[in-house]
């Protein structure tokens, strides 16, 4: 087997890996402070070093779902420029959900054993 296929393998793995990450990135953006959709998008792209790209439409759709299940809410505030905007923020339940998710799924990577393996 040649190494020619390495880039294809990497992008295929990344594609699968990134699925399901949008929620985490949206939550991280809101944990950072309340934001309107453009700011959330900008936060995700900047902090993920452009490895995660998201369409505004997809963000709106997700935020509507999170709002519907009360893990996200919004307040109408005046934007930096232009019209009033919906500033989204995590509700208490959303904050708790994120904390529990991080505890169970993200903190694993910070354990000494896994950390050492990653550094090897």
């Amino acid at each position, binding site marked *: 087997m040649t190494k020619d296929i390495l880039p294809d393998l990497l992008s295929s793995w990344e594609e699968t890996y990134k699925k*399901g990450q*949008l929620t985490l990135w949206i939550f991280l953006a809101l944990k950072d402070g309340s934001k309107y959709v453009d700011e959330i998008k900008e936060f995700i792209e900047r902090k993920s070093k452009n490895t995660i790209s998201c369409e505004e439409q997809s963000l709106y*759709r997700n935020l509507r779902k999170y709002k519907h299940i009360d893990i996200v809410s919004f307040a109408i505030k005046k934007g930096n420029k232009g019209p009033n905007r919906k500033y989204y923020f995590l509700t208490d339940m959303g904050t708790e959900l994120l904390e529990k998710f991080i505890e169970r799924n993200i903190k694993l990577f910070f354990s000494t054993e896994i950390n050492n393996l990653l550094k090897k």
Partner: protein
Amino acid sequence: MKTLITPNLLKFTLTTIILTIIFRLSLSTSITSKVIIAVILSAIIYSILMWFNGRYFGRKEYEYLPIYDIGFRFHLSTFLSHNVVSIFWFVFSFKSHYENIKIIYMTALIWSVFLIIHFIYFLSIRKSTIRNLDKEDLFE
């Protein structure tokens, strides 16, 4: 219950009512005139337009907020709209001389069997939802 009756469902229902009135009008007119091809064409055009109606508003509904089960809610709305319009069509005597209300009742009866089957399916998938949203479609 409030979350199940959405703006897209209401728009779909309104369009269904309008299409059904047009269908009944063309059907009664064709039957009165005894133009068989017009009777067949009325039914075909009505079914095609209803398909587009469901597809357009169903897709919009899913993209806005995928509240379960879009299919059953739209099916129930179609059943009610179609049959209520059809019954009123007879009540207000817009029908053709050759039409019989028994056909409406028979259609509704057969249709209701399929609606009940769909309702059972609706109840079964309800278990896999959180506040009316499909668990598997909640997080991306």
